[in-house]
């Protein structure tokens, strides 16, 4: 899908030109106030953009130059807001039917499957007031999807929930990602959420797009670290290669292997791992007298300022592959070790976070 929006507010200009994959979850990521939600609202037709353009699956929804603007209720989209937005005067079932009826889904196509996918079958006769925050969001997602949208827009759907509810709803979102064949735009300012769910990342800052690429590529870039702040870190797509006798699992990726504790993940399955920049340290030689298990040979690609004074971010290319890693070290260590682009180093990885 393609979207171009330009809006001038007092003291803030939104100017974006987006090209987004037609399938999978695309995260709109950026600090609060950067314009993520406004972009989403433009796509939904809730915000006026005098020169706006939007096409989804080669169908033009908005092209102001040709005088085309479909109002929100004529756009086949699903919208999930930050806070629970169920109609309080209707039961869960009537909330679901509200959209189905108006979208012409009278025969309830996909209704049963949706109830199971989001685990809301037992809630149908309940009033929205009596549901937990997580349940409400699941119903809201089901309600949006039952209109058979061609675009799903989600505006920080988890941010109003506490950690426990978040963890409860994330698996449902992952199932959606795997089963939906429409583009999903997911606005978030939580990198953990984004790294776990999204395949594609659009970085927004001050109303502009500063990066638009696959998730892995964006997270490997040292120059974007300011946006990610303390959450900077690369993502590796790995395959579960072996369960070893001493209780470790070996993960392999092009150009290297990682060990993680435990052996729950099934052999051959894909695992997305995140390596925080602050969990990687550098050594000039391969140590064997050290407790750190995961040491990968790499070459320094670039050095950039970190968001904290006295620290720098070093971008590394792992040997034998295309994968990049980021590490956060102090400027003093950089000088002591004389780390410059092109230098061969060993990345010692203190911990690996499994995203999915």
């Amino acid at each position, binding site marked *: 899908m393609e979207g171009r929006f330009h809006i001038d507010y007092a003291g803030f200009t939104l100017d974006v030109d987006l090209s987004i994959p037609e399938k999978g979850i695309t995260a709109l990521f950026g600090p609060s106030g950067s314009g993520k939600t406004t972009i989403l609202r433009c796509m939904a*037709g809730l915000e006026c953009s005098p020169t706006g353009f939007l096409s989804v699956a080669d169908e033009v929804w908005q092209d102001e130059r040709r005088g085309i603007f479909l109002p*929100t*209720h004529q756009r086949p*989209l*699903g919208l999930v*807001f930050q806070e629970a937005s169920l109609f309080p*005067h209707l039961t869960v079932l009537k909330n679901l039917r509200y959209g189905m009826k108006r*979208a012409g889904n009278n025969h309830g196509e996909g209704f049963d499957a949706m109830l199971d996918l989001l685990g809301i079958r037992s809630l149908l006769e309940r009033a929205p007031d009596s549901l937990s925050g997580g349940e409400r969001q699941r119903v809201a997602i089901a309600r949006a999807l039952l*209109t058979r949208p061609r675009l799903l827009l989600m505006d920080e759907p988890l941010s109003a929930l506490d950690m426990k509810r978040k963890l409860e709803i994330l698996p449902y979102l992952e199932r959606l990602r795997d089963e939906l064949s429409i583009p999903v735009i997911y606005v978030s300012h939580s990198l953990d959420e984004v790294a776990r769910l999204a395949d594609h990342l659009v970085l927004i800052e001050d109303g502009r797009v500063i990066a638009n690429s696959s998730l892995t590529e964006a997270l490997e870039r040292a120059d974007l670290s300011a946006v990610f702040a303390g959450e900077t870190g690369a993502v590796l797509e790995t395959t579960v290669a072996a369960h070893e006798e001493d209780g470790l699992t070996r993960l392999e990726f092009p150009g290297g292997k990682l060990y993680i504790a435990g052996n729950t993940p099934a052999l051959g399955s894909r695992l997305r791992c995140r390596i925080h920049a602050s969990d990687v340290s550098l050594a000039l030689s391969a140590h064997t007298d050290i407790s750190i298990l995961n040491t990968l040979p790499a070459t320094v690609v670039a050095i950039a300022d970190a968001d904290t004074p006295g620290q720098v971010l070093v971008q590394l290319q792992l040997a034998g592959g295309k994968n990049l890693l980021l590490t956060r070290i102090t400027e003093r260590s950089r000088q002591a070790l004389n780390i410059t682009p092109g230098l061969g180093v060993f990345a010692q990885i203190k911990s690996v976070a499994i995203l999915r």
Partner: protein
Amino acid sequence: MDNASLTAIWLTCKLATLTTVLLLLVGTPIAWWLANTRSRLKGPAGALVALPLVLPPTVLGFYLLIAFGPHGFIGQAMDALNLQRLPFTFAGLVIASVIYSLPFVVQPIQNAFEAIGKRPLEVAASLRASPWDAFFSVALPLARPGFITAAILGFAHTVGEFGVVLMIGGNIPGKTQVLSVKIFDYVENANYTQAHWLAGGMVLFSFVVLMLLYGRRQRADWSR
């Protein structure tokens, strides 16, 4: 209670009911507009609607009488349409009551619409509801408490009016002689027994109405 009193009570109920129904029909679009507009006219329009709250009923009655009269624009329009002029008629009373009680109906509904906010309507639009559809299927049901308050206040306030009625309607039994005017009539003629019946009834009625209203508010507070 004598027959004249019963006639006055019946007339008052008829007037208040008709006025309330008309007010809900007229007041809802005004309240909706006031709740949603960003126009510069919002301030002046809101003030205009609220005027009857502060104006002495005689001022309102005086201007309405002039407008309804043979030289007023409404009077001339009625003449042109070959209709009866409005002063001293039940229809004139209804129109005057609608204007007089307007703020009591518009304000609770406007507050209810404002409390709902834009979000439920945006959600409705994302579920393919057209603006009219969303108004009837979401805004109206969500604003129901505001409508009930508005109806109670509009009805009660119309029952309680006196000055405007006297100036527009006069004191014609069965036609424009409402309760409050009838009480005035009895007192003037020193018929305190009948005055007591009506006045006492009014006190009881007003108390019950207000009790219902505040009881509703309290329940609404608890249910939050």
